[in-house]
């Protein structure tokens, strides 16, 4: 649906050129929810603006549904934009227009009939759950409601693609959740391809099927969300994932891993994905190697219906057996072991 080839953006200013991003190659298939995550300053906003050419890429191609947008004359480009919806971090609604009139706006631009617009506005407000707010002004709505208006507006002309620019970053966690649910519903029911950029791994975890990690203007890693979560390769990716997965690990516990003084045990972090999460691995470990396992922390989460968890355990027992135990854990599919403190050297 969206193919991005060798995309590069350079801002030239009086104080020299600034590279926003380069070598961006992505292929977003129809019906996917594709997330691009990166720290602030990674070039995310510039990237998403280059996809509907709100900003001109310096090099490369953006092909949407077989049409290369970068070569289109301006009128044709405007026509193509009508089949791409976009929502924004700060909603960007017209404050002089009512909710219904805001949703009608893109259809006015497409010169649709008044009766048709009225009908469609009703339909859209129902879809986003704001039928009773049709005559309100944006300033009378909460952030979450405003973003719903933004979504209704973006869907007005039945777009093939929905671009989401940090669309939940200005919202509280609960509202974020409800907006993400709405996006998922739109994706499933209307089959609209969604491309979103965010700096929140929670967003990726909750709705994306594919993810690309952008850091310092380059894509450092991309793939299935589950695969990236279970086996991140790049340090930036790891940082993002740890923020979500370790969200509940008390700091003292992580700190304790460094200056550990308990017995002569080894402190290990075990991450597991999929089937591994449902097998009694720890139990077998204890029996087979006659070790003591003290579970200091544990959590389990689901991403795209696949279990995903972390345990921090302290293993005590014969040093050789501990080594064997760790090897045993590592050998299991879907399990990753990280020794936080090695008691075997004590």
């Amino acid at each position, binding site marked *: 649906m969206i193919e991005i080839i060798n995309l590069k953006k350079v801002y030239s200013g009086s104080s020299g050129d600034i590279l926003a991003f380069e070598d961006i190659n992505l292929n977003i298939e129809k019906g996917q929810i594709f997330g691009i995550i990166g720290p602030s300053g990674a070039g995310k906003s510039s990237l998403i603006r280059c996809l509907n050419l709100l900003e001109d890429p310096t090099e490369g191609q953006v092909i949407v549904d077989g049409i290369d947008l970068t070569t289109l004359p301006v009128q044709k480009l405007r026509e*193509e*934009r*009508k089949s*791409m919806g976009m929502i924004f971090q700060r909603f960007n*609604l*017209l*404050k002089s227009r009512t909710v219904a009139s805001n949703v009608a706006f893109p259809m*006015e*631009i497409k010169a649709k009939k008044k009766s048709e617009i009225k009908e469609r506005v009703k339909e859209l407000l129902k879809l986003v759950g704001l039928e009773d707010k049709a005559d309100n002004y944006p*300033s009378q709505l909460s952030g979450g409601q405003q973003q719903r208006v933004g979504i209704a507006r973006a869907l007005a002309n039945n777009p093939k693609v929905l671009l989401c620019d940090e669309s939940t970053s200005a919202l509280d966690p609960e509202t974020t959740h409800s907006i993400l649910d709405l996006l998922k519903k739109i994706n499933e029911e209307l089959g609209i391809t969604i491309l979103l950029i965010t700096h929140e791994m929670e967003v990726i975890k909750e709705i994306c099927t594919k993810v690309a990690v952008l850091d310092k203007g380059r894509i450092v890693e991309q793939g299935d969300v589950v695969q990236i979560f279970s086996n991140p390769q790049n340090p930036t990716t790891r940082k993002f994932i740890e923020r979500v997965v370790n969200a509940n690990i008390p700091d003292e516990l992580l700190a304790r891993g460094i200056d550990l003084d308990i017995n002569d045990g080894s402190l290990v972090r075990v991450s597991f994905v999929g089937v591994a999460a449902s097998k009694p691995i720890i139990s077998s470990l204890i029996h087979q190697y006659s070790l003591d396992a003290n579970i200091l922390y544990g959590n389990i989460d689901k991403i795209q219906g696949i279990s995903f968890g972390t345990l921090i355990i302290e293993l005590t027992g014969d040093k050789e057996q501990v080594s064997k135990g760790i090897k045993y854990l590592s050998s299991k599919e879907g399990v990753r072991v990280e020794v936080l403190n090695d008691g075997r050297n004590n």
Partner: protein
Amino acid sequence: MMEEIIDFLLRGNDLLWSGTLETLYMVFVSMILGSLVGIPLGVGVVVTEDGNILESKGINFILSTIINITRSIPFIVLLVALIPFTRFIVGTSIGTTASIVPLTVGAIPFIGRIVESAIKEVDGGVIEAAQSMGATPWEIVTKVLLPESLPTLVLGLTITLISLIGYSAIVGAIGGGGLGDIAIRYGYHRYQTDIMIKTIILLVVMVQLIQHFGNLLARKLDRS
């Protein structure tokens, strides 16, 4: 109450009544004519700026130069300098209709600046949203920039209207008609202090009313 005051000021005094009407006529007509040129001028300056929807260095330079030059000429000088032009357009340089010419020319850059600053306040994100929907520059101007800045525009145009009342008195000084003319001819040259005071009261009331309704309208239009 208000009627009583107006009655006191104008009763048996056709002079002041017709002066009031003349002032209103001059000011409103030049306001409308000035807006017809000033609004496009202000919009033009903004949209041709660097990075805006119709970026054009050349046009931007020309338009801002027009505003800057006309803005820097003191009104009384502009008034005199325009006499041949006024005579060419209206056929005379004396009287209320003739006054409309310099008032309009004076109003144009004033309105241009006000429109410029009002439109610049429109959130760039909203413009971006309209662009992302495939809006043309014309649609962005008419459906986004002007409606979104309307409350600010109304306040700015109220200020213009009040300034034009001030300018109209200056035109009055060289035979332009209106309340300013009366104040100078009767109040100053003939020492009729009562007429001077009455014109002052009338002008103050006029300005107050315009400001009041301007504020009211702006508040009614403001949805933020």
